[in-house]
């Protein structure tokens, strides 16, 4: 359908890279979704290959009914963000998807060096859940129909992470 990113990327988003990059890549993802897990190393490859040309934003799209820990994982990354370790948490969850449950998240938080007492308190904060839900709603409004869904410079990209890599490669060449 229309499939434009709503709302546009702002300072509320978690982003990697420089804003001036030519390619603004937004992923709507679910930490428990195997396809998102498979896309994760491809996104890393894109970031490595295209470096400063890519500005990467991740927004949460937890399908809580089919993935019981997706919401908890998303909240855990937001709690990590409060300790300036959003991307460390994001990475470690995708790298250890098979151990994703409440206990696993605690372990991961410890591994990346979060202050655990603060983390445990923060994950109960309602505004973190509200932020994840706002991400989800923005995804629905933007035409996200499954995970992962990608947007390039505000337009929905009809394809997976590998298609994305190939497309960028072609455009670069």
């Amino acid at each position, binding site marked *: *359908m*229309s*499939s434009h990113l709503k709302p546009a990327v702002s300072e509320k988003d978690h982003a990697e890279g420089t804003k001036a990059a030519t390619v603004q890549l937004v992923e709507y993802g679910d930490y428990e979704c195997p396809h998102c897990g498979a896309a994760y190393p491809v996104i890393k490859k894109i970031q490595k290959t295209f470096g400063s040309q890519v500005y990467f934003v991740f927004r949460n799209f937890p*399908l*809580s*009914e*089919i993935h019981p820990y997706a919401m908890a994982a998303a909240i855990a990354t937001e709690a990590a963000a409060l300790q300036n370790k959003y991307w460390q948490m994001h990475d470690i969850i995708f790298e250890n998807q098979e151990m994703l449950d409440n206990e696993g998240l605690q372990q991961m938080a410890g591994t990346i060096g979060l202050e655990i007492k603060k983390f445990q308190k923060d994950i109960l904060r309602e505004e973190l859940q509200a932020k994840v839900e706002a991400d*989800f*709603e923005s995804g*629905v*409004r*933007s*035409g*996200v*129909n*499954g995970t992962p869904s990608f947007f390039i410079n505000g337009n929905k990209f009809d394809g997976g992470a590998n298609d994305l890599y190939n497309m960028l490669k072609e455009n670069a060449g």
Partner: protein
Amino acid sequence: MLQKGDKAPAFTLYATPDQKFSLTELKGKNVILAFYPADWSPVCSDQMALYNETLKFFNRYDAAILGISVDSKWCHLAFSQSRKLHFPLLADFEPKGDVSKSYGVYNENEGESDRALFVIDKDGIIAWSYLSPAAMNPGADGILDALESLKQKTK
């Protein structure tokens, strides 16, 4: 395919193995009809799983959603349980595809419903309809836009 402004044809279909459901039961509510080709096929599953997660947004617009395909009530039951769906799936099973045909969204070659969406207003008039490519999950943004404009209109 029925379009905006058409009256939504009435129907009564099985929603569970022992219960029938009529469109008239939702009178006074907005209704979303999601016709889809088949239970279990990957795209449909994603589409129904997505609507399962977006029910709360539909609720905000006082809208109920019904999934409709030609699968039998027993097939719907198993599919619905497997996906933990919180909205009814109706069996357009006998006479096969009758309701889909009345909305103009039946694929004779495949013997399945098209992947089509309708938003029906509280007076039973179609406010929006959309035919999606069969292999494409149309998402929920079009539905929400249609519900939003209905809300604006009734203000």
